Structures are given as C-alpha cells and as structure tokens.
C-alpha cells in the first residue's frame, strides 16, 4: 500500500518538499544542539524544561484524541465515523512520533536513551510514559494499517485486530493520564500539584485533537476526491464543543481552588501567567489570548445551527486548537517552573535554534501524517471509483 505515497500530483510533492526544507533546518539546528549542548536553548537552571516538553505534552493529547473516533465507532456502532477513523488513527501515529522526537530532542545524553530499558524503574512515571507511548504508537500503526488493507481488499479485517481496538480505547486515556502524572506528582511545583491536572489534560486533548481532525477533514475534502462527509465532521464539532466547555469548566475549578484558598505556592504561578509577578510577565498576553480564543470558540460552536455552517465550524476549530495549544504548549511548562521552588522569577523564552528544532519536529510529524493520509486517501479514492 505504501507505494501510493510515491505517486501524487504536483501539489503533494511541493508540500512534501516544503516539509523537508523545514525538517532540514530543524536537523541542522539539532546538530548544533548535539555539538554544543542544551545551552543553545532558552532553558536554564530554574526553567529546566521548556518548549520541547511543552510540545510533547500538547501532542500526547492530540494523539489520545483518536479515541474520540474509535470509541463511538467500535463501541457504539456510530457508522458515520467508519469513514474517518483511519484519519484519527494515523493522526495519532504522527502525533506520538512527534512526542517521541520531542523527548529525544530534550535529552542531555540522547545516546543513553535506552538506559530507560536497560535499568527499568517502575517507580518512575517517565518509565511508564515511555511504555504507554510506544505501546500506543504500535497499536495505532497496526490497527490503522490492517483495517485499511482489509478495506482495500474488500474483506473483513482479521479477527486479531478487534481486541487491539478495544485495548486502544483505555490505552488512549492512559497516555494522557500518565503524562499528567509526570507533573502532578511532584511535591514542590504548585501549578501542577492538582488532582484535576489529568482531567484538564484529557478535556483539552479531546477538544484540540478533534478540532485538528475537523481542519484536516476539510482540507482532505478540498484537496482530494475523498469526501469524509458532512455527518462525521458535524459529530466531531459536537465533541469539540463539549470538550472545550469541559476544559474551561475544569480550568475554572482550578482557579477557584487556588484563589479562594489563597495558598501562595499554588497562586503565584497563576499570577505569573495571567498578571505577571515581580515585574515579569512575558506570558500574560498569550494566556489571555488563550482564554479569549476558548470563549470565542464556545460562542461560535455552542449552537448546532452555527456549527452546521462549516465556515463557522472551521473558525471555531482553529480557535480551539490555538487556545489549547497556548495553554499547554506554552504556559503549562514554563508556568510550572516560574516562580522556582525558591520563589525566584526567571523568565523562559525559547531560543531561535530551539524554535527551529521544534518546527522541524512538527514538520516531521506532518510529513508522516501527509504520507499516511496519502496512502489512506488513495485507497479510499480507488474504492469509490
């Protein structure tokens, strides 16, 4: 089936070359980082995780959101999603690949990466995160590929994928839960030390992932002969609407607990992010932009009538994606480290090479996504004709 990725219109190749250029720039910057060390990033002693770990966190959510297609289709026999579950699964593959690349980019000694397997440490959440992420990657590659192959041949998929699909449902929830556990189990970091973190992560994931899928479905319809159909896109819109409202609600729960209790250890991080602390407040406009984007999205998507207009749906999906990205891909990590456990405020700004490496990883993810979608869509086009 993979040969379908090797033929395509000029637009397809232009897109791939564009992504390859970004990947090349990112790889060049990574080479520099590999030579000089993480000193070339904006990270330092006080903010020791930065943009890489933030992107990783956001993308785990995007990956987990494939379950929003798989669950209704396989557990509730919601047939409309049958056409696009493959798009969700392949998006998960691309997203988890990016997650793993971001972790690798963040390691001080990447050549020792396999020490995590050589000296397995079940007491470390990072060990479990590695386990569930790799498991989820393989589950989605296998499920997606086998089902697509069966569809192409016009036969029923082999029996062994059914249990894998059922396993993949709680597994999707687990990847983002374990990722939240990375942060919320740390005693000295008040911003993360909250039981609702995993729930917040999941709600923002189930908003961000399906909103990206809406955007992708609309692009697929525009650029190919395969139409994902109006009904599944509308159903995704409903999921996004519920999820983003839940996400804002969970955020409100957090804000209430923090500001009514007024415990400084928890409150200072919110102050830093939303109003600034000791004269530092580089994230303030971004965080308010995220809030505004989320509320605009809710306003756009709230009624079924408005959502039925695909232009409004698209605008809402873009707002959700950007809003949740700022919250997790920017504020979540830097905000957790600022102020430091000794209450010093050190502001973190990613460096140019760090941003190019980040862009390079995103481009690699989208290269994987483009190739996988090209295969899936070619098969669907052949079946339709």
């Amino acid at each position: 089936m993979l040969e379908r990725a090797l033929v395509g219109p000029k637009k397809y190749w232009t897109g791939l070359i564009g992504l390859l250029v970004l990947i090349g720039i990112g790889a060049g910057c990574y080479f520099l980082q590999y030579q000089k060390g993480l000193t070339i990033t904006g990270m330092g002693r006080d903010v020791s995780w930065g943009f890489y770990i933030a992107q990783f966190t956001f993308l785990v959510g995007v990956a987990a959101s494939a379950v929003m297609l798989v669950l209704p289709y396989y557990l509730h026999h919601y047939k409309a999603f049958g056409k696009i579950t493959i798009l969700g699964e392949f998006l998960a593959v691309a997203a988890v690949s990016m997650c793993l690349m971001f972790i690798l980019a963040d390691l001080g000694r990447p050549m020792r990466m396999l020490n995590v397997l050589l000296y397995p440490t079940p007491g470390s959440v990072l060990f479990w995160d590695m386990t569930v992420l790799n498991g989820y990657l393989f589950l989605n590659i296998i499920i997606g590929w086998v089902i697509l192959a069966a569809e192409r041949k016009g036969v029923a998929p082999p029996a062994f994928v059914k249990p894998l699909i059922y396993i993949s449902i709680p597994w999707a929830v687990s990847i983002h839960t374990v990722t939240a556990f990375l942060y919320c189990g740390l005693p000295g970091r008040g911003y993360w030390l909250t039981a609702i973190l995993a729930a917040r992560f999941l709600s923002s994931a189930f908003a961000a992932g399906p909103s990206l899928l809406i955007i992708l479905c609309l692009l697929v319809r525009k650029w190919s002969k395969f139409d994902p159909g109006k009904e599944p896109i509308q159903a995704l819109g409903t999921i996004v609407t519920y999820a983003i409202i839940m996400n804002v609600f969970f955020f409100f729960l957090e804000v209430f607990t923090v500001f009514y209790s007024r415990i400084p250890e928890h409150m200072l991080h919110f102050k830093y992010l939303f109003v600034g602390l000791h004269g530092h407040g580089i994230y303030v406009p971004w965080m308010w932009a995220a809030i505004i984007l989320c509320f605009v999205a809710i306003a756009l998507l709230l009624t079924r009538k408005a959502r039925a207009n695909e232009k409004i749906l698209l605008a809402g999906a873009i707002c959700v994606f950007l809003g949740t990205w700022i919250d997790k891909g920017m504020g979540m990590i830097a905000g957790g480290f600022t102020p430091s456990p000794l209450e010093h405020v050190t502001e973190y700004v990613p460096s140019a090479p760090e941003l190019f490496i980040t862009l390079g990883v995103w481009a690699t993810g989208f290269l994987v996504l483009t190739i996988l979608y090209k295969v899936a869509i070619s098969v669907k086009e052949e079946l339709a004709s």
Partner: protein
Amino acid sequence: MSLNRRDFLKIAGITALGVGAASAFEVLSGKQLEAALKAAPLTAGKRWAMVVDTRKLREEDYHDVITACHTSHNVPDFSGTKDEIKWIWAEPFENAFPDSPNEYVKPEVKDKPFLVFCNQCGDAPCVRVCPTKATFKGEDGITMMDMHRCIGCRYCMAACPYGARSFNFRDPRTYFADKEVPNREFPTRTRGVVEKCNFCTERLAKGLYPACVEACKSNALIFGDLDDPNSEVRRILRANFSIRRKPQLGTDPSIFYIV
C-alpha cells in the same frame, strides 16, 4: 566480601581496639565484624546529616565554604548565566524558607543569607522519579548520582523542591580547558548530565569530613550520623530548636538549621 584469614585477623585485631571488651572469638562472626567497622567515626554512618548553626556563621564563612565545595568537586563557574552550576550557595531567608513568610522576623535572620544545598532527603523525590536509577540512595542515606547512567532528562530537577540540582547545559570541561582542574582526584563531568551536592561521599570514604564542614572556620556546620543517638548532630539537635526546609512536603530533609 571475601577475606583471607590473614586479612581477617588484621581487621579483627584493629576493630577489637574499637569495640573494647569484645573478644577475638566474638569478633569472628561476620555481622559483628561489619558492626565493628561501622563504629569507625566517618567511614560508615547509617544516615549522614548536617546541622547549620546560622548563629555562628560569619560573613567570611560563606565564601570559604562555597569555594571549598566547588573547588573540591571541580564545579565550573558559570555564575550569572542560566547555565549556572552550584552545589552549595547562599539564599535570603524568604527564598530558603518560602513557606515561612514573616516580615517581622528578627533582623539577624532576615538579613543573614542561608547556606542551601541538597537536603539529602530521607524520602527523596529525585530518587523516586529518576527513570534509570542514575539518582539513587546510598546505604549511608546519601542521595547519589551515577554520571555515566544519567540520560539528562532533568525529571529530577523538576521533582526537587529545593532547587538543589544543576544540569550541565554546557560542557564543563571547556571551562577547565585553559586552567588547572582544581581537584585532580575528583572527576569532571560531561555535558548533558545532572549533578548536585554528594555530601562529599568521596571524602567520607577516606574518613574526612565534608569539604564545607572543614572549610567553615567558625564551626557552624556540624556533620554526623543521625541514626546514632550519641553523635554530635543528635546532641546539638537535642539541645537546640531547629528547622528544616519545607518539611511539610514529607521529604524528611537531613539538613537542619538552627536560627
């Protein structure tokens, strides 16, 4: 530990001096030999701890102590940059004890910097989170680092509630490229690994006190075994009220401050 008869008798003979009344026959059992060896003053504590008597600390002590530690462990000087490495340093009261805000605290405390370093926690979050056991607990309670196993994920830095850990963002060896390595007996590190105070485990093995304790002329740093009720640290803790950094987090720090 396998010993031949000759070595065994030698050690038994030496330890017999330490255990006093114990007859050579009694010392012959392995358990007792071990116990006798551990009675030696510094080579075998069960839980090393330190008391910082801030009442005694003088201004020149800070420089002496920090320099002694950093030269003894070949810590490169990247101070003032985001890549800074520090094992021991001074913080104002409000930063060392951010959970005890008190604007009316007496001026001697408010204006006096506190020496802060790894707390050698009884239940260390950094040990708990390390995915490779590169950070681990030694038998003597010291939180240790294996610089050859560390993958540089920096999870321990996120976990440490005391900001005690530093990551080698730069290659520390480039710092020593044009100058003498201060202590040829202690290894320099490579880029990409995390490091912190190791309670001078390499000095303890030789029966020496930690470098900071030795360098502090006013004897404000007192080192000893917390598990030994007769140790100097236990005696001082019995006689004085002491505080620890963020004890409410349950990390059970082994560093005590007398203010």
